[in-house]
């Protein structure tokens, strides 16, 4: 933008200066913050009763419906997706871009400009101790100054101009660009978010063990195709001892494409599966008792080899090498004993799965007992050791499904932001000038310096520089 144009005050100039103004920045910052606060109070994308109940607490029951109607009309019930909130974010982005473009040329000039010798006035207010007189001629003293600078991590250069000798050293000139890198990263994140909103889709999928699906339920309630089929082979959940807190849960998933199994992978919380741009996250699980589920046992009769059996509810199997048969008569996902010694089921998930079996010999029931998956001493039966391994097909895995082509740009933006912040806050532009002035058989070295941040640490370094120069005296 050419500065001489601004006098004409064309429409474009006015729009430009509107977006470049600090006032706009303040207004946009405040608007985003204040509306966001409202957005955290009003429950987003929720059933209207929840919010009406909440509003009734604040405004009274009589006006709650009216207030809700107004808020709903204004988009506050789903404000982070509303046109005006997105417009605010857009204004924020425009403001950021145009302010950066306005200031970049000045900074760029500063960054491109190599360090120049300092005028006499720059050395005027030399602080005490920042001046050293050494016994050497100017050339030697200059070299000694370069060496001393090297000791504090600076690369010095002797410059002669108009009979004056100065040693110049500079560091981190490009750190002045850190703030622009940070601004760019915000833009990248916003662009990635827009791509995600436009081309991405999010939803969920519940799969019972052994079943598969080629669609998932989108957040808007519609089904969307995955482009392949996903099957849940198995689901396992483990709990912390003596508690209902889940310790870990995981699913084994298989991707089927054109009738062929392409990929089998175990996923868990914090460990998703990605296939063809669609990512599946382990989010919930549940217990769904049904007659198709299979009870899996491992049977070890006295005189026969171990054998695996699986059967449905109320089914039975014959124990090899005996004439006894075992029937599944009852099941509890979470068996417990109360203080009176009665058995009961204490939870709806498979915390302590137990199966009740009837063992009969020659058609007559011989004994009945509970076999618990997690307690091996309950596996002993008159027909040998019967291990209850799993109830397969009665648990479902709850998956979050997401397809977001913009997420990589967001990640890139995050990386750029981390780099930009590091440069902007932890690096600084430091410049040192040492004036070399020959006086008879001695040379006077005067230090001047400037830094744009972290002044105190820099001062310590300058003290060290002076001390290094002092050492060369002898």
């Amino acid at each position, binding site marked *: 933008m050419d500065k001489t144009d601004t006098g004409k005050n064309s429409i474009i100039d006015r729009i430009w200066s509107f977006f470049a103004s*600090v006032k706009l*920045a*303040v207004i946009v*910052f405040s608007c*985003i*913050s204040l509306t*966001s*606060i409202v*957005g*955290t*109070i009003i*429950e*987003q994308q929720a059933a209207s009763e*929840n919010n009406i109940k*909440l509003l009734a*607490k604040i405004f009274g029951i009589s006006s709650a419906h009216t207030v809700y109607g107004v808020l709903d009309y204004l988009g506050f019930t789903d404000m*982070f997706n509303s046109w005006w909130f997105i417009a605010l974010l857009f204004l924020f982005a425009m403001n950021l871009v145009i302010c950066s473009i306005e200031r970049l040329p000045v900074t760029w000039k500063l960054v491109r400009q190599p360090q120049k010798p300092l005028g006499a006035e720059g050395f005027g207010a030399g602080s005490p101790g920042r001046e050293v007189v050494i016994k050497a001629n100017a050339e030697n003293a200059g070299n000694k100054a370069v060496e001393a600078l090297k000791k504090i991590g600076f690369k010095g250069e002797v410059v002669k101009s108009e009979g004056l000798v100065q040693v110049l050293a500079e560091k981190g000139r490009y750190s002045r660009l850190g703030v622009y890198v940070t601004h760019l990263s915000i833009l990248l994140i916003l662009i990635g*978010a827009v791509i995600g909103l436009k081309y991405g889709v*999010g939803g969920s999928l519940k799969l019972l063990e052994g079943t598969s699906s080629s669609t998932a339920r989108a957040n808007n309630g519609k089904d969307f195709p995955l482009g392949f089929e996903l099957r849940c082979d198995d689901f396992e959940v483990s709990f*912390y001892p003596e*508690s209902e*807190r*889940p*310790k*870990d*849960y995981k699913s084994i998933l298989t991707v089927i494409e054109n009738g062929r199994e392409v990929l089998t992978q175990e996923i*868990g*919380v*914090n*460990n*998703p599966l990605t296939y063809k741009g669609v*990512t599946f*996250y382990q*989010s919930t699980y549940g217990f769904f008792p049904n007659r198709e589920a299979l009870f899996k046992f491992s049977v070890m009769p006295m005189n026969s080899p171990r054998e695996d059996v699986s059967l449905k509810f109320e089914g039975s199997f014959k124990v090899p090498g005996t004439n006894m048969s075992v029937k599944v008569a009852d099941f509890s996902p979470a068996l417990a004993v109360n203080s009176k010694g009665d058995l009961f089921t204490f939870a709806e998930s498979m915390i302590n799965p137990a199966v009740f079996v009837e063992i009969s010999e020659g058609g007559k029931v011989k004994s009945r007992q509970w076999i618990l998956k997690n307690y091996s001493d309950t596996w002993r039966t008159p027909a040998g050791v019967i291990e209850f391994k799993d109830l397969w097909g009665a648990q479902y895995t709850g998956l*979050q*499904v*997401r397809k977001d082509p913009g*997420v990589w740009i*967001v*990640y890139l933006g*995050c990386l750029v*932001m*981390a780099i930009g*912040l*590091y440069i*902007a*806050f*932890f690096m600084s532009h430091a410049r040192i000038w040492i004036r070399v002035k020959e006086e008879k058989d001695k040379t006077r070295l005067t230090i001047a310096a400037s830094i744009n*941040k972290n002044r*105190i*640490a820099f001062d310590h370094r300058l003290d060290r520089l002076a001390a290094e120069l002092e050492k060369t005296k002898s």
Partner: protein
Amino acid sequence: MDSSVFFGVATIAYILAMVAYIAYLAFRGGMVGVAATTVTIIGFVSQTIGFGLRWKEFSAIGGMGLLRSVPLTNLYESLVFFVWCIILGYLIIEWIYKTRSFGAFVTPIAGITLAFISIGGVSAEIQPLVPALQSNWLLAHVTMSFIAYAAFAISFATALMYLAVNTEDRRSFPYIFWTATIGLFAGALVAMSIDFITLKIAARSSQAFIQNYLFKATFRSEYAAVTAASFASLGGFVFLAWRYGDALRKLILSFSVTPDMLEDITYRLIAIGFPIFTIGGLIFGAVWADQAWGKYWSWDPKETWSLIIWFVYAFYLHARQMRGWRGNKIAVLAVIGFAVTMFTYLGVNLLLSGLHSYGGA
């Protein structure tokens, strides 16, 4: 020896250090100052060992490896770590600025916090983690957020001190602002202490504590009279701070701190806290959320309020750098920044989750 022994040593050391720092202010003796710093360092080292031991205990119980066992999952541990960060920050300031003036302020906060935690029933009960928290991101995200919170907390204190030494007129906005802030803050701290003593809750998860216990003995009491009395006392605190703000001003002035130094410390702490908060709190949080829940940003209240913190401090930095704001204006911004931070930590869970059913980390 287990971690609580070392935390006990640290508590005693901080309280002794407080005495030494006050004596230092009174007598200005060189040796007293060295002794105060030494005792603080002993407390700090002891607390560090305690923290490391607790980390090991946690990993042994959880069985999840060291990286995933950082002991920062309940209120007790969070407060201990917060105290640790503040003492570390203080020691760095003492070293850089070569002043012991803040010691008399900081060590009592550290000592009293640790003492309250142990009175409140330390019960080194270690709670196992739910699967969503079993991630390597936990360590980076939580520790960096806390370091940033601690930096903001100290900047809040120095900004308040700046306002205190810089305002005299009881009718001016900055005076009312800083005295009201101190009054509200002191009132809230006293109320929390009462919670700790009466309800014995230190070992709960911070989520559960904030929702079910915080201010239950005072502002959120079941008895209307207690609630009313609590709010009246809060008003009393504000009035006292306003009425006797001048005495506080003289006290701070007697520590021989200059306004320039206070402003410089405030700025530098925010300049350190802001990038750490952005990277550790926002970016690592987003990456973790992306891996655990499949959404890097979902505008939940905690995230939204973190973004507001970010906006306030970004505004502070730009106002100072680009607009050249100095003095009371910028100090007020720094105070607001930490108030928003406190609201994000406590208020979001207390008020917003009380109304809704937000869970999660």
